[in-house]
């Protein structure tokens, strides 16, 4: 799987440049994150036009709030993607009708993929392997909730299971994922 290795200033440096009003830093920042932000929005919304709106808004908000980013609380990439994810969840709440196909869920844990994606799986092998180690039903619930913003009730409807089971799968999946990440990080 190709790894995307950013060159030039660090993510934090670009964000700091953007916060100080540097136009070149803002351009470099947008260039660096546009693919991931748009990719996440597209995966969640399944509609290119809606995904572009969300991605534009997410990057604009990152610019607006760049000066309050605290590197001690996490990575810039996670911060930007969280902004995009929250915006996409809000959009989905208004028009929840996106079918999440089984093959899309399967691809999230596969080792490669195409369909127009430069890197269909993302950049973090540890995360992918950790997710792959979570049992199928829990993984589906976890990905639907964590990446697609489904509530437990929506997962229960989509999967045809009781609400309590959906909630338990989400929690158990998240705990298994945490455990697998810890193990993976130790191995690395």
């Amino acid at each position, binding site marked *: 799987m190709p790894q995307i290795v950013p060159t030039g*200033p*660090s993510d*934090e*440096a670009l964000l*700091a*440049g953007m916060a*100080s*009003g*540097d136009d070149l*830093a*803002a351009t470099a920042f*947008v*260039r660096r994150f*546009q*693919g*991931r932000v*748009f990719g*996440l929005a597209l*995966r969640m919304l399944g509609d*290119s036009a809606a995904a*572009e709106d969300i*991605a*534009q808004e997410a*990057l604009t908000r990152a*610019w607006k709030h760049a000066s309050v980013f*605290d*590197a*001690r609380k*996490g990575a810039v*990439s*996670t911060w930007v*993607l*969280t902004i995009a*994810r*929250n915006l996409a*969840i809000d959009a989905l709440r208004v028009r929840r009708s996106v079918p999440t196909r089984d093959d899309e869920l399967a691809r*999230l844990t596969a080792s490669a993929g195409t369909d*127009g*994606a*430069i*890197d*269909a*799986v*993302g*950049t*973090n092998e540890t*995360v992918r392997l*950790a*997710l792959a180690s979570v049992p199928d039903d829990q993984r589906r619930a*976890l990905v639907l*909730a964590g*990446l697609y913003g*489904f509530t*437990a009730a929506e997962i229960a409807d989509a999967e045809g299971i009781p609400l*309590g089971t959906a*909630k*338990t799968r989400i*929690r158990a999946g*998240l705990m298994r994922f945490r455990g697998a*990440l810890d193990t993976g990080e130790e191995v690395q």
Partner: protein
Amino acid sequence: MTTGDLGCERFEDDVAALALGTLTGRQRADVIAHVEGCRSCESLLELLSATSDQLLELAPVVEPPIGFEVRVLNRIRATERARATRSRRRVALFAAAAIAIGVLGFTAGDLFGNGSPQPNTAAAHAALRSDGHSVGSLSVRSGNPARLVVKISDLRRSGPVVCRVTDEKGRSVTLGIFWLYQGSGSWTVTMPFPAKDLRSATISTEQGTRLAIGRIG
């Protein structure tokens, strides 16, 4: 999670949902109210939130439509212009208000009480030096949290710099990466330890070359 008195078991599933950002309305409010009073669930929420963030690493990288970058940058610039206009309006309004107060013959002290000065929260001040020359200043403000104000005016470079602080026990903490433009830049950042413990702050390149240092005391 076994703090049975607080009924943590009842919230286990919902803490996970809260970490994933999928809890809404009343349920969300109920869980937050519980977590705020329960250290055990607060720790669990912190752990699961960090775990949930990792899922975002699975987001695929997809080339956006042609022209996307230009449209985002135009949007940013439009927002910047609107912000600058609002700021100018605020300054103008503030100036007009100040003149009006002056005309009426009031001072701020007359309006707001006994006129006693506000407590000065500046805990320490030092010059930032590079090769023996002053290139800026450090100002530490006590409070919770303490804040460090860094002003650089003459470092003869543009681009990112790393700011680190060292406390009285010699522990160094990176506060973040900041940006200099034509040798100048300023920022305010929260301190990881009390203001009185600060002994020095350094400015360096991302590669670790020291550019300037300011020593307190």
